């Protein structure tokens, strides 16, 4: 009996090292952009791995380990961290939600987005702009543009329909454009003074 438990533990440990731990950098990056704070990101990632190990038997071998871990982290953030951490004001949230329903991507043509406007912006400003997005929009943007998950994977990670992934993503990118355009303008203003 003890031997059997040993074997199970060894295979679990192996799975953990081989499939889970290599995702630590991606998870930390995601956690950092969610919490906007190194200490919280560190805790969130540790908790994620602890939960992953504890529930390792509910992980289906051969399936997408990265998506499974991201789901644990995202749920952990929503359930435990969101309340405590410094959050951007979420008063605008309802307003964003109403946008979401009307978004079908058809206004792409209206966007005046000049490349060179963004060239002067650095990573810090982009990180800050992402952090100002409501968490639902931030999440899809990070999962898609940073981690390269498919819409279907994102839908599973967040538990929303694919159509909602699409509309949130569309809205998130437009919000980023607006914010970054404002930053770029402010910078240009300062430089020209």
């Amino acid at each position, binding site marked *: 009996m003890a031997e059997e438990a040993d074997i199970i533990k060894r295979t679990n440990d192996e799975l953990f090292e081989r499939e889970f731990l290599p995702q630590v950098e991606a998870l930390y990056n995601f956690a950092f952009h969610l919490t906007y704070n190194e200490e919280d990101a560190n805790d969130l990632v*540790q908790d994620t791995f602890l939960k992953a*190990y504890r529930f390792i038997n509910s992980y289906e071998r051969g399936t997408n380990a990265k998506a499974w871990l991201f789901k644990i982290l995202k749920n952990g953030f929503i359930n435990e961290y969101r309340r405590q951490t410094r959050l951007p004001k979420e008063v605008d949230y309802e307003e964003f939600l109403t946008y979401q329903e009307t978004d079908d*991507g058809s206004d792409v043509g209206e966007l005046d987005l000049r490349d060179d406007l963004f060239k002067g912006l650095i990573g810090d400003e982009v990180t800050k702009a992402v952090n100002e997005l409501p968490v639902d929009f931030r999440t899809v943007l990070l999962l898609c*543009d940073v981690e390269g998950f498919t819409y279907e994977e994102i839908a599973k990670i967040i538990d929303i329909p694919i159509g909602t992934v*699409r509309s949130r993503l569309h809205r998130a990118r437009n919000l980023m454009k607006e914010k970054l355009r404002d930053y770029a303008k402010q910078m240009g203003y300062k430089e020209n003074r």
Partner: protein
Amino acid sequence: MQNKWGIKKIAETLSFKLKKQGNMYDCKATLTRVMMALDGELTEAEEKAFLIHLHQCSPCLKKYEIEKSFKKFLTEKLCRQRIPSQLVDQIRARISSIAGS
């Protein structure tokens, strides 16, 4: 040069076929699919119709290129934060303490 002509020829042939199937995109149909095209979410047939329109319509191509560089910009600027040096050790330590008990 040769390559460019090759693509043009292929696009013409394909667009002829698609026209016959009624499978062509106009500007609106193309622009609503820019995001999905960049995210790799179009089906093969949709992608074909999309690319053919881009080859034939420079305003749409320009918008596509702008969106493409914006996505690339976001991806690059939001790239990996360096993980704290002890993070992996801390995880292993906490795992072995629960695994041992």
